[in-house]
């Protein structure tokens, strides 16, 4: 199969790559661009471990083709911190021990960032439903919800 040439923006940088027409954006990120922070837990859009933001919209990158990123803006976990300054969500996840094994963490952080961008002051229920597309098997979600609540407070104060 002939490759597709794609020109896109990833975490603010212009990026060009060749990919196969049937190749997912997740595979492009991980295998072609070395951005392995997005994880594959299922490959069917059920676990959210590969969550990215595509033009201000939260998506599972395993359900997006690499070719579809043409001309669009992609945000991944690798772009969340500014230099060595962590995003408040990253900091609060650490402080609240909102991760155990950590495999779901990049997806949760991206989903939580998207949630707070659209709803800066969510209730517990809104957080729980907002993050219901991301699976975590270690924490029981308690500390994740608390970390997001705390981050929302910190971001309002900032």
């Amino acid at each position: 199969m002939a490759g597709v040439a794609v020109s896109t923006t990833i975490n603010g940088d212009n990026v060009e790559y060749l990919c196969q027409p049937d190749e997912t954006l997740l595979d492009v990120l991980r295998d072609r661009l070395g951005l392995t922070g997005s994880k594959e837990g299922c490959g069917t859009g059920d676990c959210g471990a590969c969550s990215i933001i595509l033009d201000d919209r939260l998506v599972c990158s395993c359900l997006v083709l690499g070719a579809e990123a043409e001309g669009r803006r992609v945000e991944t976990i690798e772009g969340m911190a500014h230099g060595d300054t962590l995003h408040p969500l990253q900091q609060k996840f650490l402080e609240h021990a909102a991760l155990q094994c950590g495999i779901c963490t990049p997806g949760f952080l991206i989903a939580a960032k998207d949630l707070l961008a659209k709803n800066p002051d969510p209730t517990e229920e809104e957080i729980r439903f907002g993050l219901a597309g991301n699976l975590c098997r270690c924490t029981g979600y308690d500390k994740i919800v608390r970390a997001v609540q705390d981050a929302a407070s910190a971001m309002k104060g900032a």
Partner: protein
Amino acid sequence: MNFDPRYSTRSFASVGTRPIRPDGVDKVTGRARYGADFNMAGQLVGRVLRSPHAHATIRKIDTSKAEKLAGVKAVITAADLPDLTDGDAAMYDILDNCMARKKALYDGHAVAAVAAVDARTARQALKLIEVDYEVLPHVVDVDEAMKHTAPLLNDAIFTEGLEEKPTRPSNITKRTQFGHGDIHEGFGQADFVVERSFKTEQTHQGYIEPHACVASVSSDGTADLWVCTQGHFVYRQHCAQLLGMEASKLRVTSSEIGGGFGGKTHVWAEPVALALSRKAGRPVKLVMTRDEVFRASGPTSATSIDVRIGARKDGTITAAEATLRYSCGPYAGMWAEIGAMTAFACYRLENVRTVGYEVLVNRPKTAAYRAPSAPMAAFAVESAVDELAKEIGMDPVEFRIRNAAQEGTRSSYGPVYGPIGIGPTLEAAKNHPHMKVPLGKNQGRGMACGFWFNFGGQTCTDLNIGMDGSVSLAVGTVDVGGSRASLSLVAAEELGIAYEQVKAVVADTSSLGYNDMTDGSRGTFSSSMATISAARNAIKILRERAAQMWDIPVDDVVWEKGHTIAKGEKYGNLAALSLREIAAASGKTGGPIAGHSELVADGAGVSFATHICDIEVDPETGATRVLRYTVVQDAGKAVHPTYVEGQYQGGAAQGIGWALNEEYIYGKDGRLQNPGFLDYRIPVCSDLPMIDTQILEIPNPNHPYGVRGVGETSIVPPLAAIANAVSNAAGVRMTHIPMSPPRILAAIVAERGG
């Protein structure tokens, strides 16, 4: 080396605090490298062909077309993994599970594998492999498999543990029995007897990270394996044995692990990846799909359990009995045996007997899942205990307190208990504010207890002190949920230095001595014991070096709060030497300073928990909602309390999923119908409430800080606690897990009489 592991009362400076974990920043920035995040130059993609049949003889496999496909570099079958197990039955089973030899024994059983230049070519190659199957009758249900008429999985298996030697083969591999006293006499003394049968369905550990590895075998016989595992040293042994390699020539590096819960304690894909790499002469990356994870790895047993418990009017249990049947998949296991040992472990019983049957079925090989086998046994026993309390007219907590095991009680599995926490967790539950929250319509409260042994085992740890006084701690147990933080705390505590001065890493198999599997909640218990021992050995050297620097006898040098102090008035003007100062001079006082420890961590403290939960049941649909959930558990000593809470909450959440929703569903054809997270639905954020935790600390007498394991016990009570809550809410006793809406609705309809 004389290391005294006994507990002594002490105050702590670092242990019990809640610092940020050392691997934290890498995990929130996406830098941490898990199984699938590693690549090697020239690496091929490995894929496995799996049986679509539950039970079939493999007549012939023709790989010639696949081998001719451009881009295919190796195709292997069982012929490429010859039997080198030399009569070791357990290893033979592992080998046969990695690659089916004569028969495919379950839907998803590996029959061949390919390595190709890319994933698309590998997938195409799988389609070109021709397997000639003779499909055989199959059986997936544990009770059905026990019948004489059931299809036999292995005609060489005769039930072990029967008084009379069986004359015909069976799917029951073993009968085991535990207990003491005389149950007939005990039931004779009972005023009330409850007798019930229960079933639980098969669940999966459900780790979010699929199994993944990169294998690279060189023509000189050395090899590297990068893999997500709970025990890289055990993987090395198993892979080396199955491939006929020397263990020391195979270096295994454990990646960050994206969840295991017992499911990453067994090799599946790793020997296959090594065999592919050996044949292709190039590195091979093999990552399971989620479908493969469900069909071919992990699951726990499905069970069928009968329980009978009798008690006097005053609430004293006089006799208890259980028969437990656990599915093992197609290979012998000891799952019912563990269930039989744990079933009544919470109680003080004069007369108790449990019998376990290990049953072969055409499902994937059963693997450990967090306190393996205990949750199902606890579900049956704790349901019957609740029902018995109700019949007697006693409060369920009071009834359990009255019969709880205590120090000096003979456990139902044999030995006499030392200091244990079942009584204190019950008292704490009784007094917990949760118990006083009023319930509304269609709501029910349930509680239940749970037990797990906890393990120790072989452990090796190195503690190296740098010239700048910082400390590198190399451990061989895998960090499954924050143990690098807790072990750094332990090293800081013992050395009397700051947590930030210690950096813990998980060492590969070539850098450290052998360590057992990170299972049985042993990570922090065992490795902290070895870390304490290593630190004490390092302190001995630090004192010797300080003695040299001061030119005084070492016996006059003591270690206190990270410094050496010269003891006695004659040294009044000698300022204490810090660890940094001693380390800085180490090049002149004898070279690098380190402490090592190799030990068998015995004496893991048994652990108990009591859980309380409130459930609302919709009587029209059978749907449930978890309103409140509280975990009370004995930790011995919580080294990093936040991560202990995390273990409690995580175990409870897994138990909630198991109790209410998760199950393997097989079609009539023996194929798994729901091998994906959409249809095998684990709890999501909106399914759960906050999970309240209370940590009790009843020190383990066999650990210097009193540590017990904490990881597993929390999954033991939820099945029963939720079943009791649902039964109270719905007004009908639930006996089949999971209590999915259709099952609850059917029970309600039946109770209404129609």
